[in-house]
Structures are given as C-alpha cells and as structure tokens.
C-alpha cells in the first residue's frame, strides 16, 4: 500500500498504531504558488503537516512562478501565508525546519531555461537536503497550462525517476470540462507520467465525513440492511454555498456548477453512497466498486423535466445586498452559465432500481451545507388514525459533510400528552462540537497520502471519464434547450428545481 521501504522496517510493527507514518525524504515543486489555493490552503497544509511531525526533516519545497523572487522573498511569502492561514499554532521553530528547504525558481511555463534551472535546484536539494530524488510536482495552475508544463518537465527529464526514487504529479480539478477534454488532458499528463504517479486531488474525498460514509455503511449492521430499494424511497445529495462566485469569474463563466462540482464532488458522494461493499479498502478494490456504480448510472429520458438549471440574481441575502451573477465582475451580461444545477439520476442495479438520486448544487443558496440525505419509504401500514400521524414525515438518515459534520436521523415519536399523536423528531450525532477545528484539513491528509504514495482517496482517470459520460449529455442538452432560470439569492434555487421534484411526487429537503 505504501512505499516499499516502509515494508520490512523492523521498527514498523503493524500493531503499533501510534507510530505516525512520516513521508520519506522528498521535495514538492509547486506551480502556481502565488495563487489563492496555494496561499490559503496548500502552503498552510504543508506547514501543518510539518508541525504535526509528518513531513520528513529533509523536505524541500520549490516555488515556480513569474515573480522575480529570491529564495528569501519566497520564504517570506510562505511565512506570511502560513502565519495567516495555518490551522495549527504558528511557531518559528517549526517554520525554521521548512525554511531550509525553500527555493524559488523564476520563469514562464514556456521558458526552457527556467526548467533547466528547476532541474538544477531539485538536484541541489537532493544533494544538500537529502530529498533522495523523490519529487512531486503540484500543478496548481489552469488546465490550459498543463501541456506546456508537462512538456517542459519531460524535456528537462524531471518526470523520470532513477534507482528506486519516485516522481509524482498532482493535478487539481477540474479534470477537463467534458469527456473529450478530460481525455486530452489526461493524455497530456500520462504521456509524461505513469498513470499510477498521477494524483488527482478532489479535496472533498479528504474530508473525514466522506471517509465516514464508508465506516457508517460498512462497519455497522444497522444501516446496510435497509440501504436498498426495498426501504429507501430516494436520496438527495446537496452541496450548497451561500456565497457567490467571488473572484473566480474567469474560471467559472462558461463552466458552471454542473462541471465545477457535480461532475466530481457530487458524483463521488453518490458513488460512495450507492456502491456495493468493496472487498477491501485497498485503492483498487474501492475504485472497482465506485466505477461499477458510476457505470450503472442512467439518465432520465426527459432531461427537461428531470433536471433544473438556475442563475442567481441580485438582492438582499441575509441582510446584505449582493450582486446577481450577471452583475459580477468579469461576467458577460448575457452569460448562460448556471450557478445552480439539479439533476435526477437513476442507478440500474438490483439494489437501487427505482430509487432516484437527486443531486443539487449551487451558489448563493440558503446556507452553506453539504449533505447526503437517504429518505426512507413510509411505513407500509400505520395502526393510527390518520390525524394521529398527520405530522409524521418519512424517516431519514442524513450524513452531514460540512459544516457541523455528523449524522442525523429522523423518525417519528409520540408527542407527550394524553392523545396519541406522532411527530418527527431528529437524533443527532455531531463529530464533537469542535471536531472540525481539531481534525486535519482535507489538504493535509491528501498531500501526506500523496507523498506516502497511498492512493485510495484519489480518483483515477476512469472514474473521471465515467463522470463526464454521465454529465456530458446533460450539459449538451442544457446548452441547446435549457437556459438557466433566475433565482433570488439566499433561496433554495429556482422554481424549476422544486417543480422537478414535485413531478415525482417528492420535495427537496430543507437542509
């Protein structure tokens, strides 16, 4: 599962579960180091890993960018970013450990000389810092720049490892914007790196709660027996943000919610919710089950009736004036990009036949929440007078992914008093009220797993392609026949979304 050198180490007893898995000697070369993601998430995550003692002392971090920075300038930039955004307390002593391995290489992506310099710097780290020829390339850059960077890496030989060392490349979503582009992108990357050395980061999969879906389903006896079409009426997967597109206009317009989050996050959540039990939690076994369920997804015949698309308009949201999508900076006034997407998917397996999975995601919705709600069928017979159970809804098991991570169950209970009256109540498990602040950031987990070469949490190309296969017909239909419907900021999306469920005799849950 991990690097070969960790096996056969007499100091690593499999029973010794205290012993932290510390990444071996290595360096990380980061492209796009001045970007928002690097500044707010990646650099702080690297610091936090160092602080937790999980990065090797020999760790090196090379920034590659246009700025004319010295190593010291870069160190100062990392220092500021870490101080402002790290999760764990800032300590100069910890930072000193990192500082010795910080390097900066100035250059454009098409500048061969800069890549020669990069090769030199990486080699210097191998010698002076003992990074052992192990290097990860983190492409925190627009996909458009991938071909250039990959080509340069290949030309300078940085992509090939020698005698037992490794080279890995990390790419962030979006993995293309449709099946074709995803394949092109992959071709570009896999021409230069071996498929098993490509790590696609979907930070959602690094979240504790997402991993807890597996624990909830497969470590318990009480859920799996009802986790099928006999008992489940339908499943709602929601990923709502209360903010607008912010400064992502350049990326967002023309992409839209479906490609931005449904293709990756929501379909991954669907796969984890719906998949069969894997033979083991090894990456390949887990992937096999996810791929199977994604391959079994079917689209509604009438896409117009079973999908919805929206775009937020300006107004008052939660006591604050907000701009509509079309008024955001850098968005054309006639943009047809959706900021809300809802789709119904079915899964053609014995377990899920007839159970619709409703996926919705959007910006400027009622509140920030991501959750999976498994809504059960009504009890087949109620030995009560109809008025007694008038307030009784359907039982539900809700996995709250963020914020306030945990699990909620909803069921009926008798209202205290003389009358027999049944009403819905909820039972709540929170991952500790402050668990989120103590639990590692998803990026920490994923960066460490990548450096350790531990792949279960990273989607592979086939999953990416299967997801696009699901989404492509929908986005194609939308582009031709379904312009986004406006919706007020701070609501749960356009009326079309509500009508879409009403047609099935159901209603969206208010998360």
């Amino acid at each position, binding site marked *: 599962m991990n690097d070969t050198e960790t096996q056969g*180490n007499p100091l690593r007893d499999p029973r010794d579960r205290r012993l*932290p898995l510390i990444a071996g000697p290595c360096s990380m070369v980061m492209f796009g180091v001045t970007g928002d993601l690097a500044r707010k998430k990646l650099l702080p995550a690297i610091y936090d890993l160092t602080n937790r003692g999980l990065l090797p*002392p020999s760790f090196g971090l090379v920034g590659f960018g246009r700025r004319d920075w010295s190593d010291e300038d870069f160190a100062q930039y990392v220092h500021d970013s870490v101080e402002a955004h790290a999760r764990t307390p800032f300590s100069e002593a*910890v930072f000193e450990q990192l500082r010795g391995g910080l390097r900066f290489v100035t250059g454009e992506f098409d500048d061969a000389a800069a890549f020669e310099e990069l090769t030199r710097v990486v080699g210097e780290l191998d010698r002076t810092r003992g990074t052992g020829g192990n290097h990860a390339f983190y492409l925190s850059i627009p996909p458009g720049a991938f071909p250039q960077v990959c080509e340069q890496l290949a030309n300078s030989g940085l992509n090939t490892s020698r005698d037992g060392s490794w080279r890995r490349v990390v790419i962030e979503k979006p993995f293309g914007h449709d099946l074709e582009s995803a394949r092109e992108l992959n071709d570009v990357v896999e021409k230069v790196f071996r498929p098993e050395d490509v790590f696609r980061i979907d930070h959602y999969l690094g979240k504790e709660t997402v991993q807890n879906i597996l624990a909830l389903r497969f470590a318990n006896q009480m859920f799996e027996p009802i986790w099928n079409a006999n008992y489940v009426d339908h499943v709602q997967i929601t990923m709502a943000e209360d903010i607008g597109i912010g400064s992502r206009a350049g990326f967002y317009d023309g992409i839209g919610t479906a490609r931005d989050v449904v293709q990756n996050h929501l379909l991954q959540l669907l796969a984890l919710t719906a998949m069969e039990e894997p033979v083991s939690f090894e990456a390949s076994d887990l992937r096999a089950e996810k791929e199977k369920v994604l391959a079994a997804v079917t689209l509604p015949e009438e896409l117009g009736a079973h999908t919805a698309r929206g775009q937020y308009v300006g107004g008052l949201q939660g006591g604050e004036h907000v701009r509509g999508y079309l008024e955001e900076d850098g968005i054309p006034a006639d943009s047809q990009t959706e900021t809300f997407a809802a789709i119904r998917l079915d899964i053609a397996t014995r377990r899920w036949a007839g159970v619709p999975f409703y996926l919705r995601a959007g910006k400027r919705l009622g509140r920030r929440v991501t959750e999976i709600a498994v809504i059960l069928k009504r009890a087949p017979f109620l030995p009560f007078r109809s008025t007694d159970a008038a307030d009784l809804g359907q039982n539900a098991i809700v996995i709250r992914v963020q914020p306030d991570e945990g699990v909620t169950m909803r069921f009926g209970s008798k209202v205290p008093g003389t009358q027999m009256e049944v009403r819905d109540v909820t039972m709540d498990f929170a991952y*500790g009220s402050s*668990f989120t602040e103590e639990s590692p950031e998803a990026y920490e987990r994923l960066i460490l797993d990548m450096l350790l070469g531990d792949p279960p949490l990273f989607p592979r190309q086939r999953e990416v392609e299967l997801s696009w296969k699901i989404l492509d017909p929908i986005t194609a239909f939308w582009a031709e026949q379904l312009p986004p419907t406006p919706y007020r900021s701070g609501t749960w999306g356009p009326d079309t979304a509500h009508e879409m469920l009403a047609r099935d005799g159901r209603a969206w849950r208010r998360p």
Partner: protein
Amino acid sequence: MITTLTDTTASAIDKKMTQMRETFGANTIGRVLTLLIVATGEDIDAPLEAAVRASHEHPSRVIVVDADRDAEVSGLDAEIRVGRDAGAGEIIILRARGEVMANLDTLIMPLLLPDAPIVTWWPENAPSSPVHDVLGSMSQRRITDALACGEPTATLKRLRRGYSSGDSDLAWARLTNWRGLVATAYEVPPATTPDRVVVTGRAEDPSVVLLASWLELSLGTEVRVEAPSTDAPGVQGIVLHRAEGTVSLRRENDDSIVLTLPGDQAGQHVAMPERSLYELLAEELRRLDPDEVYGDVLSHAYSVVRNLSTYAKDKPAPTDAISADADAVAADAAAHVAARLREAIDARGVAHLVLTGGTVGVKTALALPDALAAAGVDTGALHLWWGDERFVEAGHPDRNDAAVQPAIEALGLPAHRVHRMPATSDGMSLDESAAWYGQQLDLAGGDAPFRTRGQAFFDVILLGMGPDGHIASLFPEHPAQQDVSANVIPVRESPKPPAERISLTWPVVNSARHVALLVAGAEKAAAVARGHGEIDPTGTPASAVRGLESTTWFLDEAAAAELPPTT
C-alpha cells in the same frame, strides 16, 4: 456553566445532570467515552485542562475523583461543568472526603455513560497494579504516568509487574514523535539493521527506558543508554551505527532536534517541541484497544521477577526468641510489637501493624492493649491491617478479624483505622474483594514498598505459620502464591479450609520494617526448622519473609525443638 452541590450523593448528581440537560440542552451531543481522572490530593487543574482540550477530539464525560483521605468527616461535594467551561465534554468533579472514598466504584457507577468505554487516568499516583484497581478493573484502558510518580523507574517496574492488556503509560506516548522520526530515518537507504544503537538520556527516565527497550526489541540489536551531558529530562538522542555510516538524532533545544544522515555534515533541523499533556492524552484516547506494542516493550524492559525469593534476599537474618509456652510467646511478642510501634510513632507519627490469626496470633493480639499501654503507645496514631483473611461472612468464627475483636474494642480504634479485609457479606466477589483491599492499601501509601524493594510501609507484620510452613494465605506449592502482579490476591482451593481466602502477596509481606513469626506447638517444629533454612518461597513460605530491619521467630520450646542447637 458551573453548578456546585455540597454534601451530596452520586444519584443526586445524576439527577442534577439530567435536569441541566433538560433546562439548557447543553450536553446532548454524542459522547464517545467516560474518562475517569483519579487525583488523590494533587493539583487537578493541569489534568483537567488537558481533558477539556482533548474533549474536542474525543467528546467525553470527564469524572474527576478528587479525594481528601485525611478528612475526619466523611462527605461528598460535587461540581458539574458543562458548556463553555467543559470544552466539548461535560465534567463532574467529585470531592470525596474520608470514608466516601472506600467504595469509589459505587460512587461513580451512576455517573458513567451507558455502554460507552471507560478510560481511567492516574495523572500522578499510579496504583500498584492498574488492572487490579477498583476503577481500573472496570476500564477498557488504564493510563498511568510513571514520570509524574515519586520514583519513575521504580513505578515503571511495578507497572511491568502488574501489567495487563489495556494498560498504557504517558511515558510511552511521549516517545511517539521520536519513534516516528527514527522509523523514518531507518528507511533511508540502505535501511540495514544497525550494529550498535545508542540512546542518550537519563537512565532513570521511564521514556528513555521504554525507547531503548523498543529499539532493542524491534531491531534485535543491543541498545546502550548513555547519560546526557546536561541534566535535561527526556530522550536526548538516538544513534544508529551502521557499516555504511551513522544515522543520528540529537535534541538541540526544547523545540527541535537535529537529524544527521551519512554524508550529511550539517544536519537537518526538525521541530519537535515537548508534547503537552493534552496531546499525550488525546493520543491515548485515539484508540481504545490494547496497545500490545507497549506491553511487549514494557515486558522487554524489565525481566519479570521469577524468583520469588528476591523479595526476602539481602535483608537481616532472622533471630529467635524462645519462650516456655504459647502464652509466654504471646506476651513476649506483644511487648516486642509495642516497642516497635512506639519507635515508629516517635519517628513518623504513625504506625501500621498487620495482624494475623491462629492460636498465638490471636493471643498476641489480645495481649496488645496492655502491652501498648505499658509502652506508652498512642493508639490514636495506629492503623491495623491483616495479612490474610478467610472469605466468609463478617463475624464468622473462622475470620481472623473476628477472633481479635475484643482487642480492637479495647484499643478503641475508629473504624477508618481498622482496615479489615472484606467479607462475603460485604457483597463483593472474591476477586473484587482482593482488588478493593489492594486499593485501600494503595490509597494509604501501601504501594510505596511494592514499587521498590527496600522500602517499608508496615512497621510490624505479625505472621502465624502452619505445620506445612505457610504464612498468610501463601501456601506451599499453591499456584496463587506465585502471583506478584498485585499487592493483594484472591486465593482459591486453599489446602486448609475455608477454601476461599484473601492474602497479601510476596512483595507486600516483605515490605515491613519488622517481621514477627508467631509459632507454638511441637507439630510445627519441623516446619520451623525448614523455615530457618534456605529461602524457599514455594516449598516453605515461612522461610521467605524478612523485615527490612528485623525478623524474629517467637517460638515456644516445643516449636523450637528441631532447631539446631545454637552455638
């Protein structure tokens, strides 16, 4: 918020908590475990702060047992903290005074979370054997901190003796970062087994002991411990000597260590500040299954005491005091005991006497009130204990304490200074009874000698001897007498009825300043002779008990008949 209850009971506290939950809805989120913190007199702020911080990762109900054993008046106060004052958990602080401490398990029973695992943590005074402790025996995990105890390495040895699956020690958790780093450093090619390993640190630091043991056990290479040049605590360095070069880790200051790999002169600096109590506790709570590696490492660190004669060795040789008959023996012994107790009280202000049963034992006890009065012993400073007891109902004629009841009454001792072993009528099983008595002994300080040979808790221990040579309920060739993992053990299938008994163990009977063996009658002459021979705990238990300062055989002439003539 904090609510205080004075002069309360456990069920009143439970009721109050339910009421608070209904009123404020403050503590309704899922708790994963109950954490018991056993504090006997020390400062509870630091452990409590650690528990509050750890509750963010492990939402728990924290019950602090803060005992004041010396209080004359018995009683219980409680403090309930929820919400802001309790992190993500809820805290109950029980301030128990005097006798309330006697049944700690029933004190906390109504306050335990249903079904949830129990973890018991002794921030300072580790019990002599965690699993034999009344609270420890109901816990999945038992956390001690040898470093915070009076004699760290002695405590660790004792924990080794009393180890049971589910124990762990913070001295082990303090090593996690070091271990992680050295495991990673080991993987630097060529990753071969080192020829020689050196750990730098003070040999009396429990973490140093455990680290050396772990390396030796995992690598199969001998590990040498070298004293550091400074008197800094904790592990200061690890060096792996390999043919291809050395890998060295050295602490350079409080915050960081330097890692030097072969061919790398400068060394790399790794931040590794000392871990806070909170981090240690949070790590301990992360897994509730037994830490088997710790068990292996602890076992490897100290060889188990297989030779039970160890406890008696190297102490002054016994002497004989021979009188005409049993009555004279008792009078002589009583005078001797009175004198020793007087010395103890003059020196330490308190005296601990262990009583026994049997003909001469009872006679001696009955002679004590007069003897103590004659010697001017302040009975207000006297504690009575028993070396063994028959596990039958209270007041039964078979019981050792029943036979000496007139003496106890004559001495006028209050109940809390008469430490009787439990009876069947006390409602505890035999095992629970032994555990309970062991805990009483621990709480009184009786575990101190159990930690280190050469320390005394009891001033005088009176022991009878059977014709088979047994003392207390340690019978020849009986399997129970081999158990030295606790200070008090249950004994089943005793060769002499009644079959069920409770007895002190070898380390404890050997932790008195003065031992007085009381024997009369010709039928015991042979055993007396054997008892004077080689130390042989298994064959002749009486030969294997020695006082730190003196061991005296009080014999009548018949019992002394087979002794070789003295020169």
